[in-house]
């Protein structure tokens, strides 16, 4: 998308100059509804939530006290959210690369069947995943009871999975299919000749993955990573239903807690702003390294 947007004006610029007059404004006029909508529904609430994170109810002046409260009470939760997001995105990325490789290189009926079934989690909403996981991962849930049947788990002292482990598992389960979809589309664009050439020089499977498939589809891989990471940071229902009452918990649960029990939008907005910052780092990386490479270096 970006390469088209940048490429076209460069070619058409002389033609437009000649037309001149009113038509100069036409593109802006056509853009107005979309951009206006973006400004009203996205930019305005975004900026206002940052602004309000510096306000305290009943006081006019800007203050940092919301951030002070965040650092007193929620620092651990911020790091916890970040750890969960990194860990589950990383695990899901590895799994999705393996899955996409299997679907890209394999052939036959089984591969086609798996290729159509693996997408299922994409269509299951987080709240349903959460409901599923609470009964699946509970101390006497389906997983532990099944493992107890084959003697791997003692149900009197079952392993506790309703914590970072279960949360990571649930996020990986949900994000993995979505990431595979994007990564696979990148893999599909790689010409077979590269893979065949590598193989004929004796490349093993892991070398094909690490030297051919992954480097050649870096763009789609980073899109998958960023989308999965940002949605993990922003998800509320899953952590709320799995580990809502526990310590540590995620930023999103804390935001809901501040609003629900205290009507405290100041601290909630401060937490939200911190979530933006966490996500902005990855977005900046994406823009600087990936888009630039795609647009200018090809």
């Amino acid at each position, binding site marked *: 998308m970006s390469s088209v947007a940048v490429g076209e004006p460069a070619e058409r610029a002389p033609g437009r100059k000649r037309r001149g007059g009113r038509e100069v404004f036409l593109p802006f006029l056509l853009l107005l509804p979309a951009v206006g909508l973006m400004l009203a529904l996205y930019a305005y609430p975004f900026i206002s939530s940052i602004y309000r994170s510096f306000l305290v109810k009943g006081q006019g002046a800007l203050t940092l006290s919301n951030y002070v409260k965040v650092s*007193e*009470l929620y620092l651990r939760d911020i790091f916890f959210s970040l750890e969960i997001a990194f860990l589950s995105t990383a695990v899901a990325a590895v799994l999705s690369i393996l899955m996409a490789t299997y679907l890209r290189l394999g052939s036959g009926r089984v591969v086609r069947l798996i290729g159509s079934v693996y997408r299922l989690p994409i269509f299951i909403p987080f709240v349903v995943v959460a409901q599923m996981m*609470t*009964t699946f991962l*509970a*101390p*006497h*849930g389906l997983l532990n009871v099944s493992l107890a049947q084959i003697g791997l788990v003692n149900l009197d002292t*079952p392993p506790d999975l*309703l914590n970072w482990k279960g949360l990571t598992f649930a996020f990986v389960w949900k994000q993995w299919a979505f990431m595979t979809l994007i990564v696979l589309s990148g893999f599909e664009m790689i010409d077979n000749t590269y893979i065949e050439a590598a193989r004929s020089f004796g490349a093993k499977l892991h070398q094909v993955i690490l030297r051919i498939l992954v480097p050649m589809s870096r763009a789609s891989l980073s899109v998958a990573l960023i989308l999965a990471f940002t949605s993990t940071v922003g998800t509320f229902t899953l952590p*709320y*239903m*799995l*580990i*809502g*009452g*526990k*310590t*540590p*918990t995620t930023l999103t*649960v*804390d935001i*809901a*807690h501040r*609003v*629900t*029990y*205290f*009507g405290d939008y100041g601290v909630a907005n401060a937490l939200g702003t911190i979530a933006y910052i966490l996500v902005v780092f990855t977005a900046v990386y994406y823009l600087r390294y990936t888009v630039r490479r795609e647009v200018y270096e090809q």
Partner: protein
Amino acid sequence: MRIKSLTMLLLVVVTIMSLVVACGPTAEPSVVKETVVVQVTTEPEPEEISLVYITAGDVNMLALGQNVLAPEFQEMYPNVTTAVVHTGPGDAGSRTIFEKLLADKQAGKARGDVDVAMVHQKFMAWAMEEDLLMPYAEELDTWQYMSAGDVNNALGTNIQGYGMPMFHSQTALAYNPDCVAEPPQSYEELVSWVEANPGKFGYNGIKGGMAGVSFVVGWVYWKTDQYEKLAVSGPVDEADVATWEQAYKDLAEFNKNVVITAGNVGTLDALNRGEICMGPVWVDMFYTFMAEGKLAPETRLTLPAPGMPGQPMYFVIPKNAPHPDMAKEWVEYVTSPEVQGPVIIDRYNWYPGIDGQYVKDVTPPEAFDRLYKDITPEIMNQYGRSFPIVEYFDAMLEAYEQWTSGE
């Protein structure tokens, strides 16, 4: 299915209509005058009214409104159709209603869309401060049945005449008699039981639902021994908060031998799966789960000293309600003994909103006995507490984050 989609359609139509009414030119005073003139000069023909009833709470509140109250009310008043709107569980649901009414006020809407709302206690403090409500309750016939303290006082806010409880809900400890031979009669006994049985008591913290919040509040009542001041009389003294530090650190110590469950429902599920032997629950959810076969029938309840909080949910009528008279009829109907007994007690397992003595005769005896079997009216009177005054309540929740989960 068809009824459901019809109701949806109705809801959409009502919403659109109310939007049209709300956004249209506002000539309210003349409309009101006209109505008065018509009533004086001619025989009043029943005007078609669509009453908007908006409710917070769990999804059972929506079911109650849609499937029971609205159709029965329409039988009494055929010209009234009731649209039931549901905003979601817990204080968050009430918050949504509050924000809707506040937005109406800020936009200067003299005639709003909401006729009657069902809200939690915290809402009352917010709404009274912003002056959003109509004083209506003392005019109703059923006002005489109101006896509980929280009719006049919601978390330290004087609300006399502004709200009528539809029901009272109470928290208590549910336990499995197979592994709890002698249920603890006090928080003190509970602490020693948990020490002897680590990992067998579970609650849902303070961010996973109100049953856990209620357990923590009860803990503070026990440790401070200041229930009267914290929940009833006040006055609020910020210096008190610092004196709670040890109470919360003890709770952190207690938590080491405790399972934190996944929400109000999570505690009941964990009990049912045999993961825990005991945990705080809402009494109505407890009996509803049992009636649906989701909880072992031998599970019992106990209310330990010095008590745990419960709360009513109130009917309120916004100041800008479009049909205040019909809204009053609605509230009067639901707070009548005829609805309180068979519906509130028998079908929904709540404690009645009105004084129990007026309901006893119209309630099926087995329903009455079921509700009061483990927690007798005497125990309820003694140990059924209120949630604290808003300022103390907020401080208690934050103190948990500071001293208990921070440990």
